[in-house]
Protein backbone atom coordinates (compact mmCIF):
# COMPACT_ATOMS: atom_id res chain seq x y z
CA UNK A 1 0.00 0.00 0.00
CA UNK A 2 2.79 2.33 0.91
CA UNK A 3 4.52 1.76 -2.42
CA UNK A 4 1.29 2.51 -4.28
CA UNK A 5 0.89 5.78 -2.42
CA UNK A 6 4.39 6.89 -3.14
CA UNK A 7 3.94 5.90 -6.78
CA UNK A 8 0.86 8.11 -6.98
CA UNK A 9 2.78 10.92 -5.38
CA UNK A 10 5.57 10.49 -7.89
CA UNK A 11 3.05 10.51 -10.72
CA UNK A 12 1.36 13.62 -9.36
CA UNK A 13 4.61 15.49 -9.10
CA UNK A 14 5.68 14.32 -12.56
CA UNK A 15 2.40 15.47 -14.12
CA UNK A 16 2.59 18.74 -12.31
CA UNK A 17 6.15 19.37 -13.41
CA UNK A 18 5.46 18.59 -17.05
CA UNK A 19 2.41 20.84 -17.09
CA UNK A 20 -0.04 18.12 -18.02
CA UNK A 21 -2.00 18.57 -14.86
CA UNK A 22 -5.26 19.40 -16.57
CA UNK A 23 -7.17 16.67 -14.77
CA UNK A 24 -10.18 18.37 -13.26
CA UNK A 25 -10.48 18.16 -9.51
CA UNK A 26 -13.85 16.85 -8.31
CA UNK A 27 -16.34 19.00 -10.24
CA UNK A 28 -18.40 19.78 -7.17
CA UNK A 29 -15.43 21.35 -5.44
CA UNK A 30 -16.08 25.06 -5.46
CA UNK A 31 -13.39 27.23 -6.92
CA UNK A 32 -11.60 29.41 -4.45
CA UNK A 33 -13.56 32.64 -4.31
CA UNK A 34 -13.24 35.76 -2.18
CA UNK A 35 -16.50 34.82 -0.44
CA UNK A 36 -16.44 31.14 0.55
CA UNK A 37 -19.84 29.47 0.72
CA UNK A 38 -20.13 29.66 4.44
CA UNK A 39 -18.40 32.93 5.14
CA UNK A 40 -20.25 35.35 7.42
CA UNK A 41 -21.34 37.32 4.35
CA UNK A 42 -22.88 34.26 2.78
CA UNK A 43 -24.61 33.40 6.01
CA UNK A 44 -26.24 36.82 6.12
CA UNK A 45 -27.40 36.45 2.55
CA UNK A 46 -28.98 33.11 3.35
CA UNK A 47 -30.62 34.43 6.48
CA UNK A 48 -32.18 37.19 4.37
CA UNK A 49 -33.76 34.49 2.26
CA UNK A 50 -32.23 35.85 -0.92
CA UNK A 51 -30.18 33.46 -2.92
CA UNK A 52 -26.80 34.82 -3.76
CA UNK A 53 -25.23 32.76 -6.51
CA UNK A 54 -21.78 32.69 -5.01
CA UNK A 55 -23.22 31.74 -1.65
CA UNK A 56 -24.88 28.53 -2.73
CA UNK A 57 -22.54 27.15 -5.31
CA UNK A 58 -22.04 24.30 -2.90
CA UNK A 59 -25.70 23.28 -2.71
CA UNK A 60 -25.29 20.48 -5.21
CA UNK A 61 -22.37 18.83 -3.45
CA UNK A 62 -24.15 15.66 -2.53
CA UNK A 63 -25.87 13.36 -4.99
CA UNK A 64 -29.55 12.74 -4.36
CA UNK A 65 -29.58 9.66 -6.62
CA UNK A 66 -26.81 7.29 -5.67
CA UNK A 67 -28.20 4.26 -7.47
CA UNK A 68 -30.83 3.32 -10.06
CA UNK A 69 -33.92 1.94 -8.36
CA UNK A 70 -36.40 0.87 -11.05
CA UNK A 71 -37.92 -1.73 -8.72
CA UNK A 72 -38.64 0.80 -5.96
CA UNK A 73 -42.27 -0.24 -5.32
CA UNK A 74 -41.31 -3.91 -4.96
CA UNK A 75 -38.20 -3.01 -2.98
CA UNK A 76 -40.22 -0.89 -0.58
CA UNK A 77 -42.66 -3.74 0.01
CA UNK A 78 -39.80 -6.15 0.74
CA UNK A 79 -38.13 -3.51 2.90
CA UNK A 80 -41.15 -3.08 5.16
CA UNK A 81 -41.66 -6.84 5.43
CA UNK A 82 -38.03 -7.12 6.49
CA UNK A 83 -38.46 -4.23 8.91
CA UNK A 84 -41.33 -6.07 10.62
CA UNK A 85 -39.29 -9.26 10.69
CA UNK A 86 -36.23 -7.50 12.14
CA UNK A 87 -38.14 -5.65 14.84
CA UNK A 88 -40.62 -8.32 15.92
CA UNK A 89 -38.76 -11.57 15.31
CA UNK A 90 -35.01 -11.06 14.95
CA UNK A 91 -34.63 -8.38 17.60
CA UNK A 92 -36.23 -10.45 20.40
CA UNK A 93 -34.15 -13.48 19.33
CA UNK A 94 -31.01 -11.36 19.23
CA UNK A 95 -31.72 -9.82 22.64
CA UNK A 96 -32.28 -13.28 24.11
CA UNK A 97 -29.01 -14.50 22.63
CA UNK A 98 -27.21 -11.51 24.13
CA UNK A 99 -28.89 -12.09 27.50
CA UNK A 100 -28.12 -15.82 27.70
CA UNK A 101 -24.61 -16.00 26.26
CA UNK A 102 -21.93 -13.94 28.10
CA UNK A 103 -20.11 -11.34 26.02
CA UNK A 104 -16.67 -13.07 25.93
CA UNK A 105 -18.29 -16.26 24.62
CA UNK A 106 -20.25 -14.33 22.00
CA UNK A 107 -17.09 -12.55 20.90
CA UNK A 108 -15.30 -15.90 20.61
CA UNK A 109 -18.09 -17.43 18.52
CA UNK A 110 -18.20 -14.33 16.34
CA UNK A 111 -14.43 -14.37 15.81
CA UNK A 112 -14.40 -18.08 14.95
CA UNK A 113 -17.08 -17.68 12.29
CA UNK A 114 -15.31 -14.66 10.83
CA UNK A 115 -12.02 -16.56 10.81
CA UNK A 116 -13.52 -19.53 8.98
CA UNK A 117 -14.73 -17.17 6.20
CA UNK A 118 -11.07 -16.94 5.17
CA UNK A 119 -11.67 -18.50 1.70
CA UNK A 120 -14.15 -15.72 0.86
CA UNK A 121 -11.48 -13.11 1.56
CA UNK A 122 -8.41 -14.81 0.14
CA UNK A 123 -10.05 -15.99 -3.10
CA UNK A 124 -11.38 -12.51 -3.77
CA UNK A 125 -8.04 -10.89 -2.98
CA UNK A 126 -6.62 -13.25 -5.61
CA UNK A 127 -9.36 -12.49 -8.15
CA UNK A 128 -8.60 -8.80 -7.67
CA UNK A 129 -4.94 -9.50 -8.38
CA UNK A 130 -4.06 -8.30 -4.89
CA UNK A 131 -1.63 -11.07 -3.97
CA UNK A 132 0.06 -9.05 -1.26
CA UNK A 133 -3.24 -8.77 0.57
CA UNK A 134 -3.97 -12.46 -0.04
CA UNK A 135 -0.64 -13.19 1.67
CA UNK A 136 -1.45 -10.96 4.64
CA UNK A 137 -4.89 -12.53 4.89
CA UNK A 138 -3.30 -15.98 4.94
CA UNK A 139 -0.88 -14.86 7.66
CA UNK A 140 -3.79 -13.53 9.67
CA UNK A 141 -5.71 -16.76 9.26
CA UNK A 142 -2.74 -18.89 10.32
CA UNK A 143 -1.99 -16.78 13.40
CA UNK A 144 -5.63 -16.61 14.51
CA UNK A 145 -6.25 -20.29 13.85
CA UNK A 146 -3.19 -21.49 15.76
CA UNK A 147 -2.44 -18.93 18.48
CA UNK A 148 -6.09 -17.88 18.57
CA UNK A 149 -7.27 -21.50 19.04
CA UNK A 150 -9.43 -22.05 15.98
CA UNK A 151 -10.00 -18.33 15.50
CA UNK A 152 -11.73 -17.79 18.84
CA UNK A 153 -9.12 -15.19 19.73
CA UNK A 154 -7.65 -12.59 17.36
CA UNK A 155 -3.96 -12.38 18.28
CA UNK A 156 -3.21 -11.15 14.74
CA UNK A 157 -4.77 -7.82 15.79
CA UNK A 158 -1.62 -7.22 17.84
CA UNK A 159 0.72 -7.71 14.90
CA UNK A 160 0.87 -4.32 13.14
CA UNK A 161 1.13 -5.66 9.55
CA UNK A 162 -1.75 -8.09 10.09
CA UNK A 163 -4.00 -5.89 12.22
CA UNK A 164 -5.84 -4.05 9.45
CA UNK A 165 -6.29 -6.22 6.40
CA UNK A 166 -9.45 -5.05 4.61
CA UNK A 167 -11.82 -7.98 4.10
CA UNK A 168 -12.44 -8.97 0.49
CA UNK A 169 -15.81 -10.13 -0.82
CA UNK A 170 -17.19 -11.15 -4.20
CA UNK A 171 -19.29 -8.03 -4.77
CA UNK A 172 -16.15 -5.99 -4.09
CA UNK A 173 -14.30 -8.02 -6.73
CA UNK A 174 -17.03 -7.24 -9.28
CA UNK A 175 -16.80 -3.56 -8.34
CA UNK A 176 -13.03 -3.61 -8.87
CA UNK A 177 -13.59 -5.22 -12.25
CA UNK A 178 -15.63 -2.15 -13.13
CA UNK A 179 -19.09 -3.68 -12.82
CA UNK A 180 -21.70 -1.27 -11.44
CA UNK A 181 -24.59 -2.07 -9.12
CA UNK A 182 -27.02 -2.40 -12.03
CA UNK A 183 -30.03 -1.71 -9.85
CA UNK A 184 -30.76 -1.49 -6.16
CA UNK A 185 -32.43 -4.58 -4.79
CA UNK A 186 -33.87 -5.34 -1.37
CA UNK A 187 -33.62 -9.06 -0.67
CA UNK A 188 -36.08 -10.83 1.59
CA UNK A 189 -34.53 -11.27 5.07
CA UNK A 190 -31.03 -10.28 3.91
CA UNK A 191 -31.99 -6.65 3.21
CA UNK A 192 -30.27 -4.00 1.05
CA UNK A 193 -28.32 -5.25 -1.96
CA UNK A 194 -28.07 -4.72 -5.71
CA UNK A 195 -28.07 -6.92 -8.78
CA UNK A 196 -24.27 -7.04 -8.69
CA UNK A 197 -24.01 -7.62 -4.96
CA UNK A 198 -26.67 -10.35 -5.03
CA UNK A 199 -24.49 -12.34 -7.42
CA UNK A 200 -21.62 -11.44 -5.10
CA UNK A 201 -23.51 -12.82 -2.11
CA UNK A 202 -23.99 -16.10 -3.98
CA UNK A 203 -20.22 -16.18 -4.52
CA UNK A 204 -19.58 -15.44 -0.84
CA UNK A 205 -22.02 -18.18 0.13
CA UNK A 206 -20.29 -20.71 -2.08
CA UNK A 207 -16.87 -19.74 -0.72
CA UNK A 208 -17.91 -19.86 2.94
CA UNK A 209 -17.03 -23.17 4.62
CA UNK A 210 -20.11 -22.72 6.81
CA UNK A 211 -22.24 -23.34 3.72
CA UNK A 212 -20.13 -26.33 2.67
CA UNK A 213 -21.47 -28.16 5.72
CA UNK A 214 -25.01 -27.67 4.45
CA UNK A 215 -24.08 -28.50 0.88
CA UNK A 216 -22.19 -31.72 1.69
CA UNK A 217 -24.06 -33.04 4.70
CA UNK A 218 -27.49 -31.53 4.07
CA UNK A 219 -30.29 -33.72 5.36
CA UNK A 220 -28.63 -34.40 8.70
CA UNK A 221 -30.31 -32.46 11.49
CA UNK A 222 -27.03 -31.50 13.18
CA UNK A 223 -25.92 -29.56 10.10
CA UNK A 224 -28.62 -27.01 10.87
CA UNK A 225 -26.83 -26.05 14.07
CA UNK A 226 -23.77 -24.53 12.40
CA UNK A 227 -25.45 -22.20 9.88
CA UNK A 228 -28.06 -21.27 12.51
CA UNK A 229 -25.38 -20.30 15.00
CA UNK A 230 -23.70 -18.32 12.23
CA UNK A 231 -26.93 -16.41 11.60
CA UNK A 232 -27.52 -15.85 15.28
CA UNK A 233 -24.03 -14.56 16.07
CA UNK A 234 -24.25 -12.00 13.24
CA UNK A 235 -27.70 -10.75 14.27
CA UNK A 236 -26.85 -8.21 17.02
CA UNK A 237 -24.31 -6.43 14.80
CA UNK A 238 -26.52 -6.47 11.71
CA UNK A 239 -29.53 -5.16 13.62
CA UNK A 240 -27.35 -2.49 15.22
CA UNK A 241 -26.17 -1.32 11.82
CA UNK A 242 -29.72 -1.34 10.46
CA UNK A 243 -31.05 0.69 13.35
CA UNK A 244 -28.17 3.17 13.30
CA UNK A 245 -28.69 3.74 9.58
CA UNK A 246 -32.44 4.21 9.66
CA UNK A 247 -33.15 5.78 13.05
CA UNK A 248 -34.18 9.46 12.92
CA UNK A 249 -34.80 9.13 9.19
CA UNK A 250 -37.55 10.91 7.33
CA UNK A 251 -37.90 7.80 5.21
CA UNK A 252 -36.23 4.65 6.49
CA UNK A 253 -36.19 3.06 3.05
CA UNK A 254 -34.23 5.92 1.48
CA UNK A 255 -31.89 6.14 4.47
CA UNK A 256 -31.06 2.44 4.24
CA UNK A 257 -30.52 2.71 0.48
CA UNK A 258 -28.19 5.71 0.77
CA UNK A 259 -26.23 4.06 3.59
CA UNK A 260 -25.87 0.77 1.75
CA UNK A 261 -24.63 2.32 -1.50
CA UNK A 262 -22.14 4.58 0.27
CA UNK A 263 -20.87 1.73 2.42
CA UNK A 264 -20.34 -0.51 -0.60
CA UNK A 265 -18.55 2.32 -2.38
CA UNK A 266 -16.18 2.50 0.56
CA UNK A 267 -15.66 -1.29 0.52
CA UNK A 268 -14.92 -1.16 -3.22
CA UNK A 269 -12.31 1.57 -2.64
CA UNK A 270 -10.36 -0.53 -0.13
Amino acid sequence: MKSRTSFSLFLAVALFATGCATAPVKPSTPAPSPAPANSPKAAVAVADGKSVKSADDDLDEYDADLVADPLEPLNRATFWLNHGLYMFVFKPISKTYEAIIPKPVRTGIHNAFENVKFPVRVVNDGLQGNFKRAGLETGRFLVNTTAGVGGIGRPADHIPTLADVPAGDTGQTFAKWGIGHGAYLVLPILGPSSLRDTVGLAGDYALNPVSWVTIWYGGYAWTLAIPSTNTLRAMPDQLGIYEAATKNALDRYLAARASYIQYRRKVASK
Partner: protein
Amino acid sequence: MNPRPIILLLVLLALPFGAASAATAEAEKHLQAAVGEVLAAGDAARDNESLVASLRPILQRHISFDTMTRRAVGPGWRQFAADQQQQAARLFTTLIIRTYAGKFTPGEHATIKFNPATEPAPGRIEVPTTLVYKGSKYSVIYRLEEAEGWKITDVVIEGVSMVANYRAQFDAEFKKGGASAVVGALNQSVEHPK
Protein backbone atom coordinates in the same frame (compact mmCIF):
# COMPACT_ATOMS: atom_id res chain seq x y z
CA MET B 1 -8.28 -0.80 -12.54
CA ASN B 2 -7.99 -0.03 -8.91
CA PRO B 3 -9.54 3.44 -8.51
CA ARG B 4 -7.58 4.26 -5.41
CA PRO B 5 -4.35 5.58 -6.96
CA ILE B 6 -6.43 7.80 -9.25
CA ILE B 7 -8.39 9.26 -6.36
CA LEU B 8 -5.14 9.78 -4.50
CA LEU B 9 -3.71 11.47 -7.53
CA LEU B 10 -6.66 13.86 -7.74
CA VAL B 11 -6.37 14.63 -4.06
CA LEU B 12 -2.67 15.30 -4.41
CA LEU B 13 -3.19 17.51 -7.44
CA ALA B 14 -5.68 19.55 -5.47
CA LEU B 15 -3.15 20.26 -2.77
CA PRO B 16 -1.38 23.55 -3.13
CA PHE B 17 2.00 22.11 -2.31
CA GLY B 18 3.36 23.14 1.06
CA ALA B 19 0.62 25.63 1.85
CA ALA B 20 -1.65 23.05 3.41
CA SER B 21 0.22 22.43 6.62
CA ALA B 22 -0.66 25.57 8.63
CA ALA B 23 -4.40 25.42 7.91
CA THR B 24 -4.39 21.67 8.41
CA ALA B 25 -2.74 21.93 11.79
CA GLU B 26 -5.23 24.61 12.86
CA ALA B 27 -8.22 22.52 11.76
CA GLU B 28 -6.83 19.38 13.38
CA LYS B 29 -6.35 21.22 16.65
CA HIS B 30 -9.97 22.39 16.54
CA LEU B 31 -11.27 18.94 15.76
CA GLN B 32 -9.26 17.28 18.50
CA ALA B 33 -10.60 19.76 21.04
CA ALA B 34 -14.17 19.17 19.80
CA VAL B 35 -13.82 15.39 19.88
CA GLY B 36 -12.30 15.60 23.37
CA GLU B 37 -15.33 17.53 24.61
CA VAL B 38 -17.71 15.04 22.98
CA LEU B 39 -15.94 12.05 24.49
CA ALA B 40 -15.94 13.65 27.94
CA ALA B 41 -19.68 14.24 27.61
CA GLY B 42 -20.09 10.63 26.45
CA ASP B 43 -18.22 9.32 29.47
CA ALA B 44 -20.20 11.51 31.88
CA ALA B 45 -23.64 10.73 30.48
CA ARG B 46 -25.87 8.36 32.45
CA ASP B 47 -28.45 7.79 29.74
CA ASN B 48 -29.20 8.81 26.20
CA GLU B 49 -31.43 11.74 27.13
CA SER B 50 -28.83 13.38 29.34
CA LEU B 51 -26.27 12.79 26.59
CA VAL B 52 -28.42 14.59 24.01
CA ALA B 53 -28.76 17.51 26.42
CA SER B 54 -25.04 17.75 27.20
CA LEU B 55 -23.96 17.24 23.59
CA ARG B 56 -26.18 19.97 22.14
CA PRO B 57 -24.12 23.01 23.19
CA ILE B 58 -20.86 21.25 22.33
CA LEU B 59 -21.99 20.23 18.86
CA GLN B 60 -23.51 23.63 18.21
CA ARG B 61 -20.14 25.19 18.87
CA HIS B 62 -18.25 22.88 16.54
CA ILE B 63 -20.65 21.86 13.78
CA SER B 64 -21.96 24.16 11.06
CA PHE B 65 -25.54 22.92 11.09
CA ASP B 66 -26.58 25.60 8.58
CA THR B 67 -24.12 24.28 6.01
CA MET B 68 -25.20 20.71 6.64
CA THR B 69 -28.86 21.60 6.22
CA ARG B 70 -28.31 23.55 2.99
CA ARG B 71 -26.33 20.76 1.39
CA ALA B 72 -28.71 18.04 2.58
CA VAL B 73 -31.57 19.94 0.92
CA GLY B 74 -29.60 20.71 -2.23
CA PRO B 75 -30.42 23.25 -4.95
CA GLY B 76 -34.06 23.37 -3.77
CA TRP B 77 -32.77 25.42 -0.82
CA ARG B 78 -33.03 28.55 -2.99
CA GLN B 79 -36.80 28.13 -3.03
CA PHE B 80 -37.06 28.07 0.76
CA ALA B 81 -38.35 31.28 2.32
CA ALA B 82 -36.16 32.72 5.07
CA ASP B 83 -38.35 31.37 7.86
CA GLN B 84 -38.51 27.94 6.21
CA GLN B 85 -34.73 27.90 6.02
CA GLN B 86 -34.46 28.72 9.71
CA GLN B 87 -37.07 26.14 10.64
CA ALA B 88 -35.45 23.44 8.51
CA ALA B 89 -32.02 24.16 10.00
CA ARG B 90 -33.40 24.14 13.55
CA LEU B 91 -35.22 20.82 13.08
CA PHE B 92 -32.35 19.19 11.21
CA THR B 93 -30.00 20.23 14.02
CA THR B 94 -32.13 18.30 16.48
CA LEU B 95 -32.19 15.23 14.24
CA ILE B 96 -28.43 15.28 13.71
CA ILE B 97 -27.75 15.66 17.43
CA ARG B 98 -30.09 12.76 18.16
CA THR B 99 -28.48 10.61 15.48
CA TYR B 100 -25.01 11.43 16.76
CA ALA B 101 -25.92 10.83 20.39
CA GLY B 102 -27.69 7.59 19.42
CA LYS B 103 -24.35 6.12 18.40
CA PHE B 104 -23.10 6.19 22.00
CA THR B 105 -23.98 3.58 24.57
CA PRO B 106 -23.69 5.01 28.10
CA GLY B 107 -20.87 3.30 29.96
CA GLU B 108 -18.83 2.48 26.85
CA HIS B 109 -15.67 4.45 26.25
CA ALA B 110 -14.53 5.31 22.73
CA THR B 111 -10.92 5.84 21.74
CA ILE B 112 -10.01 7.82 18.64
CA LYS B 113 -6.81 7.86 16.65
CA PHE B 114 -6.32 10.88 14.40
CA ASN B 115 -4.68 10.21 11.05
CA PRO B 116 -2.96 12.82 8.85
CA ALA B 117 -5.40 15.36 7.40
CA THR B 118 -5.84 16.18 3.71
CA GLU B 119 -6.93 19.43 2.11
CA PRO B 120 -9.28 18.53 -0.78
CA ALA B 121 -9.88 22.22 -1.59
CA PRO B 122 -8.72 25.53 -0.15
CA GLY B 123 -10.49 26.16 3.15
CA ARG B 124 -11.56 22.54 3.41
CA ILE B 125 -9.91 19.86 5.50
CA GLU B 126 -10.68 16.18 5.87
CA VAL B 127 -9.41 14.39 8.95
CA PRO B 128 -9.58 10.60 8.80
CA THR B 129 -9.78 8.96 12.20
CA THR B 130 -10.00 5.43 13.52
CA LEU B 131 -12.61 4.93 16.17
CA VAL B 132 -12.37 1.94 18.48
CA TYR B 133 -15.68 1.32 20.17
CA LYS B 134 -17.02 -1.78 21.87
CA GLY B 135 -14.20 -3.88 20.46
CA SER B 136 -14.72 -2.87 16.83
CA LYS B 137 -12.80 -0.47 14.64
CA TYR B 138 -14.55 2.11 12.48
CA SER B 139 -13.28 4.59 9.95
CA VAL B 140 -14.66 8.04 10.72
CA ILE B 141 -13.79 11.01 8.50
CA TYR B 142 -14.48 14.53 9.71
CA ARG B 143 -14.93 17.23 7.08
CA LEU B 144 -14.15 20.74 8.26
CA GLU B 145 -14.47 24.15 6.64
CA GLU B 146 -13.28 27.53 7.68
CA ALA B 147 -15.98 30.03 8.54
CA GLU B 148 -15.48 32.07 11.70
CA GLY B 149 -13.04 29.38 12.74
CA TRP B 150 -13.06 25.75 11.70
CA LYS B 151 -16.42 24.03 11.78
CA ILE B 152 -17.39 20.42 11.06
CA THR B 153 -19.61 20.18 7.98
CA ASP B 154 -19.96 16.40 7.70
CA VAL B 155 -19.11 13.20 9.51
CA VAL B 156 -18.52 10.14 7.33
CA ILE B 157 -18.74 6.83 9.20
CA GLU B 158 -17.52 3.77 7.26
CA GLY B 159 -18.05 5.69 4.03
CA VAL B 160 -21.57 6.78 5.01
CA SER B 161 -21.95 10.56 5.09
CA MET B 162 -24.53 12.05 7.44
CA VAL B 163 -25.40 14.74 4.91
CA ALA B 164 -25.63 12.36 1.93
CA ASN B 165 -27.94 10.09 3.92
CA TYR B 166 -30.50 12.87 4.24
CA ARG B 167 -29.95 14.27 0.75
CA ALA B 168 -32.10 11.63 -1.01
CA GLN B 169 -34.78 11.88 1.68
CA PHE B 170 -35.05 15.67 1.48
CA ASP B 171 -35.03 15.48 -2.31
CA ALA B 172 -37.98 13.08 -2.33
CA GLU B 173 -39.96 15.36 0.01
CA PHE B 174 -39.04 18.44 -2.00
CA LYS B 175 -40.28 16.81 -5.22
CA LYS B 176 -43.54 15.92 -3.46
CA GLY B 177 -44.37 19.34 -2.10
CA GLY B 178 -41.47 21.79 -2.10
CA ALA B 179 -40.06 23.50 0.96
CA SER B 180 -43.18 23.04 3.07
CA ALA B 181 -43.09 19.26 2.53
CA VAL B 182 -39.45 19.15 3.67
CA VAL B 183 -40.18 21.19 6.78
CA GLY B 184 -43.32 19.10 7.44
CA ALA B 185 -41.42 15.81 7.17
CA LEU B 186 -38.65 17.14 9.42
CA ASN B 187 -41.22 18.23 11.97
CA GLN B 188 -42.82 14.80 11.86
CA SER B 189 -39.46 13.06 12.47
CA VAL B 190 -38.52 15.37 15.34
CA GLU B 191 -41.94 15.18 17.01
CA HIS B 192 -42.43 11.43 16.56
CA PRO B 193 -39.06 9.72 16.74
CA LYS B 194 -39.15 6.35 15.04
